[in-house]
């Protein structure tokens, strides 16, 4: 069979077109792979460099000493580590009970007006910039109290954690099989007892994972603490407790002194040190970055591994 010149041209054209499509396909798909690599580069660059710079700063003193005046070598960031722990505990105390209770409500009544409003409110709260929460607590607590304090900082962090806690707890409660709930109610247990002693334990693993993620995110936050916890390089819980015992103060008075004064936290210290022109402060800020980052990343990875292993176990 002979082909006309016209048909030949068409065939040629089609072949070229198909080749063009194939090439576009390969080129574009390769580009997506490269973009993925491109995004991962900063991750390893940051982690690698922080370990390299921070690793040379960190020693035992770094964790056990208070800060020393400039010009003196050594000194550590104990004040900041203690402050971080105090802030984390306070924010958990403020955020977990209302967060979990609200999650119980929204898991049970997702479509009532309040349930809809609550889910929407959670979304909005998750999107509010963290520095705005700092401003809010500043006007709400710091101005009337007339001083910065650890508990104001804890409250600001708590608002930051709330959306995560509500959302993960709600998701986990929804995953508990209905049969468990019905069995408990069928045995005559009231709703609250079913919620607290059947649903809650059944969902506990996932809920704790949610707490961990919320805490690790809030520990890395600086902006809400700027006008609430302020920072305090002389903060030392050991001294406060010893002083309190020597002067026979009650436990509540000692706790009051711990939470009612400004505290530092690791990211806050990092920020302040990084702005100073002194090389030893810069070195210490890299050390703080290492401590902070290893804490946050390890919590994140452990929580994810835990979730993943449980998912595998559930899928059999």
């Amino acid at each position, binding site marked *: 069979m002979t082909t006309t010149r016209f048909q030949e041209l068409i065939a040629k054209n089609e072949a070229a077109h198909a080749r063009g499509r*194939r090439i*576009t*396909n390969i080129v*574009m*798909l390769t*580009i*997506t*792979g490269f*973009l*993925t690599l491109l*995004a*991962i580069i900063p*991750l390893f660059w*940051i*982690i690698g*460099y*922080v370990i390299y710079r921070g690793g040379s700063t960190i020693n035992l003193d770094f964790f056990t000493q208070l800060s020393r005046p400039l010009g003196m070598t050594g000194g550590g960031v104990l004040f900041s580590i203690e402050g971080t722990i105090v802030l984390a505990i306070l924010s958990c105390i403020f955020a977990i009970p*209302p*967060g979990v*209770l*609200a999650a119980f*409500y*929204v898991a049970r009544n997702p479509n009532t007006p*309040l349930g809809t409003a609550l889910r*929407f*409110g*959670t979304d*909005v*709260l998750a*999107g509010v*910039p963290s*520095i*705005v929460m700092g*401003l*809010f607590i500043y*006007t*709400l607590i710091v101005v009337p109290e007339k001083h910065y304090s650890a508990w104001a900082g804890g409250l600001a962090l708590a*608002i930051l954690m*709330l959306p995560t806690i509500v959302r993960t707890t709600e998701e986990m409660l929804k995953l508990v099989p209905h049969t468990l709930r019905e069995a408990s109610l069928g045995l005559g247990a*009231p*709703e*609250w*007892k079913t919620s607290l002693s059947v649903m809650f334990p059944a969902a506990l693993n996932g809920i704790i994972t949610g707490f961990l993620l919320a805490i*690790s995110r809030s520990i*890395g*936050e*600086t*902006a809400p603490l*700027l*006008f609430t916890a302020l920072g305090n390089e002389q903060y030392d819980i050991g001294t406060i407790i010893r002083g309190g015992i020597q002067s026979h103060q009650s436990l509540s008075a000692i706790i009051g002194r711990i939470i009612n004064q400004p505290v530092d936290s690791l*990211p806050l210290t*990092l*920020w302040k040190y*990084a702005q100073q022109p002194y090389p030893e402060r*810069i070195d210490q800020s890299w050390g703080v970055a290492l401590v*902070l*980052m290893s804490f*946050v*990343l390890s919590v994140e*990875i452990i929580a994810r591994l835990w979730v993943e292993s449980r998912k595998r176990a559930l899928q059999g």
Partner: protein
Amino acid sequence: MKKISVPQRNHWLARFQQSTHHGDALWSVLIIFASLILLALVIGIGWMLWQQSAEARIKFGWSFVLPTSNSTWDPDSGVFQAWAFVYGTLITSLLAILLAIPISVGIAIFLAELCPEAIRLPLNWMIELLAAIPSVVYGLWGIFIFLPKVVVPVGEGLATVFGQVPLLNSFFTGPIPLSGSSRLAASMILTIMIIPTVTAITRDVLLAIPNTQREAAMGMGSTRWEMIWQVLLPYGLSGILGAVILGLGRALGETMAVTMVIGNSLEATNSLLKPGSTMASLLANQFKEAVSQLHTDAMLEIGLTLFVITLILNLIARFLVWQVARRTPQEARA
């Protein structure tokens, strides 16, 4: 035989149990109360900032946030116009999202459609870990490594390429400072920080598209890329748009990393290559050192502006994501 004890009918415990449905009434009150606390917080944040910024709002009106040719921020004479910072926030966030869209969508395509099963989970994790690194650590790395090594060369390149082009040259007036502190630096750091957000949602949107769409496209003889570009992306467009807006919201509110790399200049220049300020970085720098009540109020009004902008963006984003969720029901693949 053991005697079963039945509470007396008028025993206080029995009455208590009866009147509260065995405690359920109390439980309901408790969980509703907790829910109301959360809602009160959202409303309270807006209300507090509105109330507290009254003085500045009344004194400056809308001119506070609207564009002006020479925006002034002078605590000593008590004249406050925030346009320079609104501009800083908008330009850095918009540039960041423009840079982040192609990268994130590319990554999401790779993760959802192409990636070999074996490396999918680790890659997903690595991208999400980018979101877990504290923003001060980004800032510190930015100051000492990213700015001198990446931003300065990029900025110099941009200044030579676009510095003479009409219309664009006001955005690329060089030279970039030696330290690299500039709006460009803030945008580039923000890009890295919002990639995980945009990627994760886009990936989920792609994964929620029914397989029948893919099969139909491939059955028509399209290549993989054509399937992705002409079928999947249009199908998931509103969801991806939602992801982009959420990413934008994150970029607008990001404080610490931006404050550390933007240079914190109060000058109202247009150039990306010059130091500037964003609303959030101004708050971080000046709020504690406010010299007068009016100064504090003006900054609270900036906080209010930030709150309202992110609130609106979130509304739009949720609406878009919700639309996708409504359209793709159960048949979605895992």
